[in-house]
């Protein structure tokens, strides 16, 4: 996907064992779809920041949805039971879904975990890429790409940065 493209719809189950789709959050001004997983250290480095962002902007009209498309046979720590455990461990405050067929990841053109796709109220893609520019040390972040884009959308502006290279593990295809 590229900025300006319309959201690709999906309905997937996950750690809550109930289907979730973007339409469930139609009241939200901004919606982030992030391809994520359990095993990747880049995700693990960033995941607390994902939880913080959801907590910070939930009441302002933002929702994040995480999708795990990795092959759990090759990477057992990415199976649904492990996802449920991780969601509890980190206090995950957004849906964490399974893309078992990997069709959604392919449709989005996702390649990495984590990889963020941020949509505006009309569900047009406005930002694609990384959460920020420092996976190692939150205190040394210079550019908060995703936060800046969320704030722009919540204020009715276009994000100043539309794309950054996603940084993370490759999606583990079947």
């Amino acid at each position, binding site marked *: 996907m590229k900025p300006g493209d319309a959201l690709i719809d999906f309905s997937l189950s996950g750690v809550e064992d109930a289907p979730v789709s973007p339409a469930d959050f139609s009241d939200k001004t901004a919606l982030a779809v992030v391809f994520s997983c359990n095993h*990747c*250290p*880049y995700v693990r480095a960033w995941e*607390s920041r994902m939880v913080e962002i959801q907590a910070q902007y939930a009441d302002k009209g933002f929702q994040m949805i995480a999708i795990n498309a990795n092959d759990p046979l090759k990477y057992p720590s990415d199976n649904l039971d492990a996802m449920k455990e991780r969601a509890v461990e980190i206090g995950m405050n957004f849906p964490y879904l399974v893309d078992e067929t990997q069709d959604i990841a392919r449709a989005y053109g996702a390649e990495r975990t984590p990889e963020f796709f941020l949509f505006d109220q009309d569900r047009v893609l406005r930002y694609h890429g990384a959460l920020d520019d420092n*996976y*190692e*040390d939150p205190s040394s972040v210079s550019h908060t790409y995703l936060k800046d884009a969320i704030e722009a959308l919540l204020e009715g502006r276009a994000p100043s940065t539309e794309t950054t290279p996603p940084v993370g593990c490759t999606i583990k295809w079947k």
Partner: protein
Amino acid sequence: MLTIDFLYYEGCPSHDVALDRLNTVLDEVGLSAQIHVTKVETDEQAQELRFPGSPTIRVEGQDIDPPDAAQVAYTLTCRAYRRPDGRITPLPTADLIRQALLAATQP
């Protein structure tokens, strides 16, 4: 001169940063080393090399952060390290590398 093996998997994006960090720390501590860089490309190669993930650094054959033998899987994956505050990071810290280099030079 130390012998260092640096093993990486291209699917993890920061191996070049790790290699730069290794060279920087070598300079800082004033040690010279022969670094053998190996690109791990298949699961079979990962098994053969006992590769627990990218990047892996071995100083004189000793992993700078030996993985838990009971839990380790040798496969094409990115490796998780821990920072001193407990947070996960995809790269070994400079301190971890420094300690491993200095330990290898102890009599």
